[in-house]
């Protein structure tokens, strides 16, 4: 049996090699398992297929969380021809390990330096461009408009107004903000905004690049603002038990009124029955008026792995996904913003709000804590944020721990 199962394995492996060597087969791995992204990619691939009938696309769909570990494995072992990933520091390990293919030629030949100019910086490492961005989305505060109106609350523009709004909500028996921190990263969204509003973009970038000690007073100032929110009972209880999706429920049920989130939260909120009259979006309020407003807008990208077997067609695919009309369409389904400057932004009100906010942003655009900071620092940091949200009295110990990690990670 040992022998037969081994030969079976060999046959299987060889047939697999045979099929992937077959010209015209394009293997795409993505993590777009949530309904809207899944549909968007289905349409994208169908469209590509229609224009290139001789290319046969094989699409492997991964679970969103699992993908983050899977990608390392398949980039080294069984590389697809296309993989989706994220811009900024998040792609650095794969670029440094030589696992992504530079695609400067795709950019040169298709005029992407012009049409995707806004994202060129976050796609460039060591003077080369490593992929094609196809979408980005704003972060900010999503809120229950109807609950705000019922309690006579206006959209808060400043920190004091924000705290006052929370207080009114509390009095009405509504928890101001819902959040689910089981998988940690949601807490980083709050931290990022507090830091961007307190210290500004340049400081935030320096912090995530490891240039500033965590025990710095300016970092403490961020946590002091966070503490104000905690003291005022801004967040739902037991958030550490929930994923971000589970934390949508209190907002849908009207038990909580706001969510500091990315635009991808809109789709499930609508699906759960909230109408556009009930759901609104506002920019995270100003804390320090001297700091130019910076925003958080993570960019999603596609790359060609260095070990891809069909780079020819993969480049065709990159050129396709960079096109204005394609980006218009995919982002309409995603409910996100296109990178291509000639694309149409969907007329969805959240997209329009995001587009307006981001195109007028002067302070800078951050990717996200776990994309701007290296993995190990990100993990330790986010764990610290979660702990702080539940045990704010441990701030000193948390910051010292983060500082210890910083000194190790960036040396």
């Amino acid at each position, binding site marked *: 049996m040992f022998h037969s199962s081994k030969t079976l394995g060999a046959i299987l492996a060889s047939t697999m090699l045979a099929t992937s060597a077959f010209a015209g087969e394009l293997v795409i791995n993505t993590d777009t398992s949530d309904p809207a992204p899944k549909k968007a990619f289905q349409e994208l691939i169908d469209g590509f297929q229609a224009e290139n009938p001789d290319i046969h696309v094989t699409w492997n769909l991964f679970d969103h969380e699992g993908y983050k570990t899977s990608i390392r494995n398949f980039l080294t072992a069984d590389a697809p021809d296309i993989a989706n990933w994220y811009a900024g520091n998040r792609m650095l390990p*794969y670029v440094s390990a030589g696992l992504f293919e530079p695609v400067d030629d795709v950019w040169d030949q298709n005029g992407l330096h012009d049409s995707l100019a806004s994202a060129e910086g976050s796609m460039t490492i060591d003077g080369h461009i490593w992929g094609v961005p196809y979408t980005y989305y704003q972060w900010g505060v999503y809120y229950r408009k109807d609950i705000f109106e019922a309690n006579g609350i206006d959209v808060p523009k400043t920190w004091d107004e924000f705290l006052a709004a929370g207080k009114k909500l509390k009095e009405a028996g509504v928890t101001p903000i819902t959040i689910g*921190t089981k998988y940690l990263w949601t807490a980083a969204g709050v931290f990022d905004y507090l830091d961007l509003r307190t210290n500004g973009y340049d400081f935030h970038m320096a912090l995530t690049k490891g240039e500033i000690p965590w025990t710095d007073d300016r970092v403490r100032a961020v946590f002091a603002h966070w503490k104000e929110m905690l003291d005022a009972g801004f967040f739902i209880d037991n958030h550490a038990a929930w994923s971000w999706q589970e934390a949508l429920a209190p907002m849908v049920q009207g038990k909580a009124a706001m969510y500091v989130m990315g635009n991808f939260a809109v789709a499930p909120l609508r699906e759960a029955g909230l109408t556009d009259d009930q759901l609104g979006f506002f920019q995270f309020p100003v804390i320090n008026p001297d700091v130019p407003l910076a925003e958080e807008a993570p960019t999603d990208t596609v790359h060609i792995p260095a070990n891809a077997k069909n780079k020819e067609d993969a480049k065709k695919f990159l050129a396709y996904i960079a096109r204005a009309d394609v980006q218009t369409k995919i982002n309409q389904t995603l409910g996100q913003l296109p990178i291509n400057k000639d694309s149409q932004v969907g007329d969805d009100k959240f997209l329009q709000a995001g587009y307006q906010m981001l195109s007028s942003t002067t302070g800078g655009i951050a990717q996200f804590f776990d994309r701007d900071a290296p993995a190990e620092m990100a993990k330790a940091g986010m764990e610290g944020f979660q702990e702080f949200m539940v045990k704010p009295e441990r701030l000193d110990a948390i910051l010292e721990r983060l500082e210890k990690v910083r000194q190790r990670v960036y040396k």
Partner: protein
Amino acid sequence: MASTSSTWRRNQQRLAPWLFLAPGIAMFLIYVIIPIFQSMAISLYQWDGLGEKVWVGLGNYVELFDDEAFYTSLKNNLIWLVLYLLAIPAGLFVALFLNQTVRGIRIYKSLFFFPFVISQVVVGLVFSWFYDPNNGLLNLGLMALGFDPIPVLADEKWVTYGIIAAGLWPQTAYCMILYLTGLNAVDPEQIEAARLDNARGLRMLWYVVLPQLKPATFIAMVVTVIGALRSFDLISIMTDGGPWGSSRVLAFYMYEQAFSEYGFRMGYGAAIAVVLFAIMMVYISGFLWKMYRDEKGR
């Protein structure tokens, strides 16, 4: 031709065992024994699984002994080890309860055994749900009794105990079945004799029954300790190590460091695995020693 067959005939009793053993040993060496030593070697390097390995000597171990998360994991491992053993008396209790001959008892026994057959993934999902702070049965019950709800999986004080309780469910079923089989083999004459001597209840259990259940207790002990040290699935499903890493055990911490989204420190992970292996080795040696004595004894 004739001579080879006669060589085989003369030596077959010496050669046959190796023939039979070869495939099994080969597979086991490749996949189990050699990797143990490879892991030990990797623990001396810094390696992200992608680039080149960098020799750091005992650097990973030095870092480990200055790592809060390592001590948290170690502490939780101890809690697991101790509390998981509760499965043994609990299993014995259930077994005694079910060791009757009333009608339908066989069905009862199988149904009680049920939790062990189910995957830990399912057990983990079921229990995270049971513990849900808002709608979980546990907290609905607590609130009905007028207590405050306990967010078991979001509270660093409770989380490890909550997960262990989930683990005890299938493990108790396992121990139960071991004891049920053991009880079947208890010598009825000794029981009757003890009854005549007026031994009953707990005294009977302690002095007459338990000594006869020793083999069952031994196996229960072994599988429970191993199970406790292998606790990974439930933690991964129920809390992902949180809140803020307070439910980690070594097995989980190793995975987190080596393979998770923010990990990929293969060398450091391997060092954690080596520590876990060392702990496990204590038990394995004990087990082997007992087997060795048994073998020599017969």
